């Protein structure tokens, strides 16, 4: 646990110093929202219906790139060997990277989501707590899967296409549920969100647990 915290602090310190990932992801998020909003060019009354799709599409793009970037930090100078040579539980490494990715993607949401609201004429303040919950649950599940498989693809020549290829099918149930839950929250029908939130929670529990348990067996070669 202490090791996990040390890794999280280390990553955040690097990120704070370079601001590389957070900045590029935020700008990318802005561009994606712009493109998606303009591509649809909706009537004003139909615009709010687009918000869930825009938010989660942007999430997929920025998330995949962000998670991969987080591993390039360990690639340079073969730092992964340094971590693997330390007497720590591999699960701590997985959980630390998971936390860092959730934080980074959370920071991206903080830019993307208000901007989507602005472009698509939706007032988000009134539903902020519920929306934040949905975003958190969706992001956690996304990061749980993407973090696990980023360890796989970081060693491949074809990693840029392999990461989305591996994780997007697995993430489909999560994305369906996240979009439905976001729709329900924005429509003010929290009761409808119940089942979708259930899927999100179940997905998070299953994949965080699976990641933590399978990760040691996976990298121990």
């Amino acid at each position: 646990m202490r090791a996990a915290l040390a890794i999280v602090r280390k990553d955040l310190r690097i990120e704070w110093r370079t601001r590389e990932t957070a900045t590029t992801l935020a700008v990318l998020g802005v561009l994606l929202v712009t493109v998606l909003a303009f591509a649809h060019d909706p009537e004003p009354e139909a615009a709010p219906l687009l918000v869930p799709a825009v938010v989660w599409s942007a999430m997929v793009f920025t998330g995949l790139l962000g998670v991969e970037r987080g591993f390039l930090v360990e690639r340079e100078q073969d730092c992964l060997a340094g971590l693997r040579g330390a007497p720590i539980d591999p699960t701590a490494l997985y959980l630390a990277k998971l936390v860092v990715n959730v934080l980074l993607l959370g920071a991206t949401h903080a830019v993307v989501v208000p901007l989507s609201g602005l472009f698509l004429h939706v007032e988000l303040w009134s539903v902020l707590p519920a929306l934040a919950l949905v975003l958190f649950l969706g992001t956690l599940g996304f990061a749980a899967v993407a973090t696990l498989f980023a360890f796989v693809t970081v060693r491949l020549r074809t990693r840029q296409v392999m990461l989305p290829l591996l994780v997007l099918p697995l993430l489909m149930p999560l994305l369906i549920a996240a979009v439905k839950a976001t729709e329900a929250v924005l429509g003010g029908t929290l009761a409808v969100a119940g089942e979708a939130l259930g899927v999100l929670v179940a997905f998070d529990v299953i994949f965080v647990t699976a990641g933590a348990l399978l990760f040691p067996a996976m990298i121990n070669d």
Partner: protein
Amino acid sequence: MEAWLGLVGCAALAAAVVVALLVAPAAVGESVAQRILYLHAPSAFAAYGCIAVVAIASAVYLWKRSAAADRLAVAAAEVGVLMCTLVLVTGSIWGRARWGAWWTPDPRLTLTLILWAIYLSYVLLRAFGGDDEEIAPYAAVLGIVGVLAIPAIRVSARLMKGMHPSVLAPREGGSGLTDPSMRLAFWGGTVALLLVAACLVLLRARLERIERQASALRRLADAAEGA
């Protein structure tokens, strides 16, 4: 072993097709397209069977590092993708004939589509992941995780349907098969396709073993030449 499985499976499949097309009476209120069910449902059973084999073999591999389990997982994944493709194509044709749409977000079709995508990505990872022994543990994790996703897929696929107008009448499975010859075609077809799938998996696993031996020998020869 594989040869017998294949022979018996193909013979059973042929028999099931004959029963399905010629013997079984038309289902009440259904067109002739309904008969595709006798291929559609069995291939779904075979697909899910293959996927179960991938997951179990992957777990055994991670646990015991058994190369045989790894080869079995590779083989079952490929055949599983093939069977899933069959399910999707037959389902799509049936859907077109019955509801006029090639694709409907029916929960079971969605589940099959997502599983198809997951195990296709497994096959691609094996194909482009480089060295077999190096990629095997990672692929094994994917093989296991794919099955863990099934509950979430099932529930979320229902969410999707909830948002669409229901174009689906409740689909009848075996229970709607009133005539004994219908049941014979259905279950006979299932057994036949399971046998064929098992045969393909075993053949593919054997091919995988031979391929790995061949590439090991080739590299050995290269190394001897280079030294």
